């Protein structure tokens, strides 16, 4: 297998296009297989150094990337804000240049401000690849890839699928990346949210919008729920979490009305009892842990695509 170096960075789903997404999903199959081995490790990135640069708390994304890198035999380092010189006032650029000077191959960047991974990609030199692990409300490309992979795994593909993305789209990098990826792969997307939790403009978004979850649930193949941040009530975006759950939560009653084939997805971390009931989270339709499992394989595929030259076995 040869990985072409078509892509130097993974910053946005928009940069990948349909071909890039399909290439990565195909590559992910290989790494699902590697992950299922008795010793789930390949020497593909031996000698490569992957650094996680996380300016925002994250458990699953950071662990997922680190697991992926280790399974590919890369050396990993983590730079997290709480224990770093950032607290002493160091700029992102200085931090990036300092880490780069140590001799690294990839930077996995998570930041609370939109656009930081793109800016970092403009600062690093030729040999370093930058992977966006979530930037503000903007994008989270590897989350969209693992969501696509999970749907493909269960339903064979995304072409013609009707997918509801439910909840706080406005503040969600997952939603922005999912919309781009799902529609690029031929799915139809409906955003379901109160108007206050939608982006101010949907000009250019290939989606439809509904404020009636019950009206939508009968016609969809996938329900993707978004995390509802509890502080949205203090910003007057919703009157109360109770009212939100009544209108937009995947409650027990709504779960019971869903067709058996419908997939229930959530990027985590979940607020059980708010956007998703405990019953929905643990039902047969929920593929939430498959998402996490596939996340490791998807990130192996991304790292391999950007850095890989070595063998897979």
């Amino acid at each position, binding site marked *: 297998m040869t990985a072409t170096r078509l892509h130097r960075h993974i910053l946005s789903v928009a940069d990948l296009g349909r071909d890039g997404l399909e290439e990565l999903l195909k590559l992910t199959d290989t790494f699902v297989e590697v992950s299922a081995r008795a010793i789930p490790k390949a020497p593909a990135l031996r000698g490569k150094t992957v650094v996680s640069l996380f300016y925002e708390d994250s458990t699953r994304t950071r662990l997922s990337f680190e697991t992926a890198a280790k399974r590919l035999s890369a050396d990993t380092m983590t730079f997290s804000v709480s224990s770093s010189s950032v607290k002493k006032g160091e700029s*992102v650029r200085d931090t990036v240049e300092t880490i780069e000077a140590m001799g690294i191959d990839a930077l996995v960047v998570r930041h609370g401000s939109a656009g930081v991974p*793109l800016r970092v990609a403009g600062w690093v030199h030729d040999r370093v690849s930058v992977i966006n692990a979530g930037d503000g409300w903007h*994008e989270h490309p590897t989350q969209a890839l693992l969501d696509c992979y999970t749907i493909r795994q269960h339903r064979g593909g995304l072409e013609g699928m009707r997918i509801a993305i439910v909840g706080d789209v406005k503040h969600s990098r997952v939603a*922005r990346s999912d919309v781009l990826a799902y529609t690029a792969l031929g799915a139809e997307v409906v955003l379901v949210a109160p108007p206050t939790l939608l982006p101010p*403009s949907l000009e250019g*978004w290939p989606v439809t919008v509904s404020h009636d979850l019950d009206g939508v649930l009968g016609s969809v193949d996938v329900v993707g729920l978004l995390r509802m941040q509890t502080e949205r009530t203090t910003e007057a975006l919703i009157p109360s979490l109770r009212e939100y759950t009544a209108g937009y939560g995947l409650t027990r009653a709504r779960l019971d009305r869903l067709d058996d084939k419908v997939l229930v997805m959530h990027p985590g971390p979940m607020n059980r009892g708010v956007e998703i009931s405990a019953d929905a989270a643990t039902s047969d339709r929920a593929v939430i842990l498959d998402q996490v499992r596939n996340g490791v394989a998807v990130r192996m595929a991304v790292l391999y695509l950007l850095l890989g030259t070595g063998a897979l076995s």
Partner: protein
Amino acid sequence: MSALVIKGGRVLDASGERVADVVIDDGRIAAVGADLSAPDVIDAGGCVVAPGLVDLHTHLRQPGREEAETIESGSRAAALGGFTCVVAMPNTEPAIDCAAVVREVLALGRVSSCDVRASAAITVGRAGERLTGMAELAGLGVRLFTDDGNGVQDDRLMRRAMEYSSGLGVVLAQHCENEALSAGGHMHEGEWSSRLGIPGQPAESEELMVMRDIALARLTGATIHFQHLSTAGSIAMVRAAKAGGLPVSAEATTHHFTLTHAECASYDPVFKVNPPLRTAADVAAVKAGLGDGALDAIATDHAPHEPERKELPFDEAPPGMLGLETALALALTELDAPLAQVLALLSWQPAAIAGVAAEHGGDLAVGRPANLCVIDTSATWTVDPARLASRARNTPYAGRTLTGRVRHTLLRGEPVVLDGEPTR
């Protein structure tokens, strides 16, 4: 200083255009006419000789942020841009809100490369709570009051400021931004903010305050000047208010008729500014407003920032962009307007609003102070941030090729720019 003659140019001022030489003696215009001579000669062949430009909206950053700009460096940038007078905004540290700071700014301005006029804050510390000592500050020469950087949020306080100032012969100027609506917004709210995931501020944040201040102008009879208007809605309201006979005036910046919010897709904070870059329709409305008189002046809102602060993440970086050295060329390149109209918008109309018409703008007439610029309207040049005279580098026009360049600038008869180079 011996007399000098500006030779071979076309004179263009508020009263018209003619081929003429201009003799300057003792800081004043001594003669305007054909084939004049004097001991010193400044060549203006192929160029336009015009009254110096006047910027209603300049951030010189002194006192407080001298790493970004000083009155010396900012006034040099102004002179290179053809400006002979700038109105320094009061959002310094400390703010220009008392006699001591006004005196400091004016004293530093006196030895600089252009005529620096201090504006002063409407409220103490620009905090929006108590009026500054406007009468005392007017006595020191302040003609324009603004809390620029912030709008005066409190309706009653703004009413009082307008009433009180109307007795002093000064101008109140407003940075129009309803903070309840704009809070947390770092670019124009719309198509691009939604796509980029950058929190936005709606056009209505600006428009609500324009609407309120027009209502207050009607209530109080006071004049109001609107700073850096950026939306089609704001400009339409000002146009209607003028048609209704209200004594309002307004400015727009060069960036609001040359750039749109699509620039923010680079996430480069060099494109972050307040009010933010807006839509193509707003850009068209600004151009239309400059063309039909709804807008009275082009201002720069020259806002220098240290490089490291413009390298922060987009939502953490301060707003503002450089403007003094590119304003005239941008107007000549981007506006489909005759030169006389561009000069009206950059020279004599802002001079009247700033209360400096006795010394700047106006006519190149015998006896007037020799504050003028010589413009090569066909010269092309490429903006190179490293070559700007400003201490800061945050121009959004790096690499852009513009037409029109200032060749000489004279301040009170003294060349402060000669053949494109500063002399001070």
